[in-house]
């Protein structure tokens, strides 16, 4: 069966037999699509950005980036490298209040999307 290169697997055509996990992946995609279509994803993004800036998280990340850049030298850094460096720290250092707020909103959305 031919698959176009970039197309994500759809449930009907794909051969993968990991039923439950695959369902989740698909579910995630469906959610994503719904988020984008309704505009809620944009709202959430803006909310996340605002909150993370307010609480100084972004500044912390930028400092971490700068440290890494200083170590590695200005010319050698790549974006991927920076992402790799700050992702674990970034994910861990999101304030609980921000996380709770976002999760709440996302859950409300999922529920209201009747999934």
């Amino acid at each position, binding site marked *: 069966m031919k698959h176009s290169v970039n197309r994500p697997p759809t449930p009907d055509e794909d051969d993968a037999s990991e039923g439950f996990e695959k369902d989740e992946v698909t579910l995630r995609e469906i959610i994503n699509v719904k988020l984008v279509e309704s505009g809620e994803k944009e709202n*959430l993004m803006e909310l996340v950005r605002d909150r993370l800036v307010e609480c100084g998280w*972004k500044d912390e990340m930028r400092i971490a980036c700068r440290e890494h850049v200083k170590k590695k030298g200005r010319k050698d850094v790549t974006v991927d490298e920076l*992402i790799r460096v700050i992702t674990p720290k*970034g994910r861990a250092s999101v304030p609980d209040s921000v996380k709770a707020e976002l999760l709440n909103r996302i859950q409300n959305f*999922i529920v209201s999307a009747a999934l």
Partner: protein
Amino acid sequence: MSGADGNKSSHTELSSQVFLDLVDSVIADVASECHRVARLGLDRDLEVVEEELRLSVEARAKVADPSNNLETNTKFVVDIFGQTHPPVASEVFNCMNCGRQIVAGRFAPHLEKCMGKGRKARAKATRSTTAAAQNRYARHSPNPRYSPYPNSVSENQLASGSPGVADEDCTNGTVRENVKGG
């Protein structure tokens, strides 16, 4: 798994994943921004920052130095071409309205009086009739004049004589209007 609990757990997990997605996007944004700043050298390096700090301290010391005349220090700054600009423009040139020699730094106040834009000057101008003023402006275009005296003389005469009649140009010296009968 069935029932509300099952749904809830998958919901929580789902929302966690969505949340992580969002955070990852923001992280990617930050990383990309920092990368750009780093590569373009926009964010000053530690050494550069230190040097700039040193330079600014030096500059501040120079400004605060009491041995320098403060006024000259602030005004006699050198621009990027190495020119200095004195605080009061000192060049002398001729006013295009009245033709007198004016110091450039005093040109604006001079113009106020000269062209009748200031309060006192305008009050003076309205003493002669508005028609005379209109005539003066009308006659300005054909013949630019450089000395005030024939102007004011003719104005006065017109004011006393017939206003709004003369089209004659007075700078030629022939004031035909007011030499009645010859």
